[in-house]
């Protein structure tokens, strides 16, 4: 039987993270990160996962103020977590557009050393001039080039990681050789990077820290199939998950890579209860907290692309159609979510009419995202079934509460997966690659 891979996502800065619940704690204090990481390690999870953002989202030209906002620098907080955990993998989302290979390769290799081989990097890109306003070069990258640059970025990073051979660090006080003359030498000439010199970090425990990819476009899938060790996918439901899995497997084979060398990990949310009915009630409660009346209007605006602040959240959908102009977006700092606005709006109108839903209830209906709702036994079974049927290799779990949102899962679902023999009861390795059963490149 396939073993399930589990990762813990620190709750993000969007409306899925509930802050209005009295149990919701700080999204920024280190104690919150420690709590979630230790919970994940107690549950023998493969890794801890952090998202990233480099510009605060705006809507209607103003900073978005309804969701949890404010988060730490990923690699810096993970380095702190390396001190309070011993086995848990530590994966950071870091943007390849607003960083340079030399600096980022140093930081990731440093984390790999400081964590004893537990570092991972979720490679994301941005072609967004809005985010670029916080950086030296600004929005300089054409959308079509972003994976091209990302792929060269990852390749360059690995060249830097390879620039120290294991035997380059000698440190022999008797002969007086500390490092070989070749240690760290590199030269990379490419389209996006033309660099050379000496890298300062000796070969790290995993040699190549884990790379994860999260984009879903054709370019993103190709990029992952060519270079990544894992995909953070959005296809969590069985049928679409299997289709995605087959697509990626074919691409991986086309790149001459071994089957199973790229792990597919959909993001997943969950709601638990002692019974399935209780879990459904819990899920409904979470959804209402996730979609306040104000949030309902803003989420509707993201489809309509218009200021809808005059509408009643409990009232009917707007008569007016969405604004489909390409060059004007009501929201900035967040990727577009709707390909065909008019079609989606028509579907929402039909659904609202059929079920007699006002704006807020409709939004709750169409944006509800819990992947697993049920008793611990049901959730364990569904997770296992997804993995055994090749809809996924495991899941990156996104709790809706900071920092205690994973506690119940670890206490109640993990033991059931362990009983089924599909999840470890003790760590068998100390590196992130080891946990995932991927060749340790060290």
């Amino acid at each position, binding site marked *: 039987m396939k073993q399930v891979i589990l990762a813990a996502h620190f709750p993000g800065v969007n409306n899925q993270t509930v802050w209005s619940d009295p149990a919701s704690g700080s999204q920024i204090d280190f104690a919150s990160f420690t709590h979630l990481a230790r919970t994940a390690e107690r549950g023998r999870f493969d890794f801890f996962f952090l998202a990233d953002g480099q510009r605060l989202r705006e809507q209607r030209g103003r900073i978005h103020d309804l969701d949890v906002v404010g988060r730490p620098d990923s690699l810096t907080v993970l380095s*702190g977590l390396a001190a309070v955990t011993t086995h848990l993998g530590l994966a950071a989302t870091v943007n390849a557009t607003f960083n340079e290979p030399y600096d980022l390769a140093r930081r990731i290799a440093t984390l790999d050393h400081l964590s004893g081989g537990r570092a991972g990097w979720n490679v994301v890109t941005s072609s967004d001039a809005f985010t670029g*306003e916080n950086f030296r070069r600004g929005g300089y990258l054409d959308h079509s080039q972003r994976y091209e640059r990302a792929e060269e970025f990852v390749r360059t990073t690995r060249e830097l990681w390879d620039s120290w051979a294991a035997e380059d660090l000698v*440190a022999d006080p008797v002969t007086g050789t500390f490092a070989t003359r070749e240690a760290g030498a590199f030269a990379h000439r490419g389209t996006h990077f033309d660099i050379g010199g000496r890298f300062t970090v000796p070969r790290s425990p995993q040699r190549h820290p884990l790379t994860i990819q999260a984009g879903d476009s054709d370019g993103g899938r190709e990029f992952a199939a060519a270079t990544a060790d894992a995909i953070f996918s959005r296809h969590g439901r069985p049928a679409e998950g299997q289709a995605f899995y087959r697509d990626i497997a074919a691409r991986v084979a086309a790149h001459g890579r071994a089957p199973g060398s790229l792990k597919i990990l959909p993001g997943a949310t969950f709601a638990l209860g002692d019974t399935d009915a209780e879990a459904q009630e819990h899920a409904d409660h979470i959804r209402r907290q996730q979609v306040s009346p104000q949030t309902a209007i803003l989420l509707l605006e993201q489809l309509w692309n218009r200021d809808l602040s005059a509408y009643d959240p409990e009232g009917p959908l707007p008569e007016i159609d969405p604004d489909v102009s390409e060059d004007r977006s009501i929201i900035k700092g967040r990727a577009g979510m709707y390909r065909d606005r008019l079609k989606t709006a028509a579907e929402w109108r039909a659904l609202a009419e059929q079920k007699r839903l006002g704006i807020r209830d409709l939004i709750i209906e169409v944006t509800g995202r819990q992947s697993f709702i049920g008793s611990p036994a049901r959730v364990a079974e569904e997770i296992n079934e997804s993995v055994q049927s090749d809809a996924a290799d495991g899941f990156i779990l996104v709790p809706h509460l900071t920092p205690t949102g994973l506690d119940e899962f670890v206490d109640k679902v993990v033991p059931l997966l362990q009983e089924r023999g599909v999840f470890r009861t003790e760590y068998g390795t100390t590196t992130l690659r080891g946990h995932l059963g991927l060749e340790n490149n060290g």
Partner: protein
Amino acid sequence: MSAAHLHLAVALDGAGWHPAAWRDPAAAPKDLFTAAYWAALVAEAEHGLLDFVTIEDSLGPQTTHLDGPDGRTDQVRGRFDAVLVASRVAPLTRRIGLVPTAVVTHTEPFHLASAVSTLDYVSAGRAGWRVQVSGRRTEAAHFGRRDIPELRPEHIGAAEPPPVFRELFDEAADAVEVVRRLWDSWEDDAEIRDVATGRFIDRDRLHYIDFEGAHFSVRGPSIVPRPPQGQPLVTALAHSRLPYEFAARSADVVYVTPHDAEQARAVVAEVRGLGAETLKIFADLVVFVGEDARNRRARLDELDGAAYTSDASIFTGTPGELADLLLDWRRAGLDGFRLRPAVLPTDLSAITRGLVPELQRRDAFRRAYRASTLRGHLGLLRPASRYVGSRR
């Protein structure tokens, strides 16, 4: 805090500041690239109640040449990212300040602001930063984005340095200004969690920083809420007029390198003359401490094949002699010292277990931490955000 107390920091670098330190019998050269090594050093510094440790870094390997690698294989080469080292040891310590070096020349001020803010969160208010300029062509080639002319010995401390160096320091000052504005860009009470209106933050208490400079512009606000200290400590090493001006304009602490008490007096006068009334001035000293200090130094010089020289003055002697020197130099108007242990951990433990008790006996150093933040150790208040009261 007694006004008579001086401030003490140690500068951690590799196996110590002597280039052959890694060959000393007490050194652990194979451990330099482990977390345990750094954790033990910082714990020892905290045991000695020191104000803070600094952690050296650079965007290129250590070298004896001004402008790039020297091809030597007999000295420590290789370094970790210092911010991550500081963050790794933060949860294992409780009081000591953590001041990593980070280069501003090839990095993004937005990232630096986030990283140091995060270190301040991880350490609960103990973060600082040593701002470093990179003037090496070889380091610029690691990024491939700009050309920098060759750095030559005669440029160091020159009365009129080449224009590019003024430019690099101006850029550094802009970078610090951006970082400081970003730290202030969230007012302390910006997070309101107001269920009635559905608002998590009060957006009027978040601020665009709208920085426009010669090298970059940054819009803001930060993605990290205002750090625990408000403004983590900004520090800089300076040997001459240009970096003194930079430090006076941008830093909270400057490390200077006088070679005797008289020079110290002149440096303090020059720096204070730049209008830096509140800037803390620390003198850097390389130290070999202990009864056998002279022998150790001679032995290491022999191993390295040359007598050790440094930009800073090199002290060799007993804890009592070092205490005499520090108290003598302090009368020049210095606020404290950043000691560079010649050999780790030997000279670090000689500081914490020899020098510190000696200074305590003379009532010149704290007997317990009185504050829990780095600013607190230095007697600096937590500043209000510059944007308080400016509502959009």
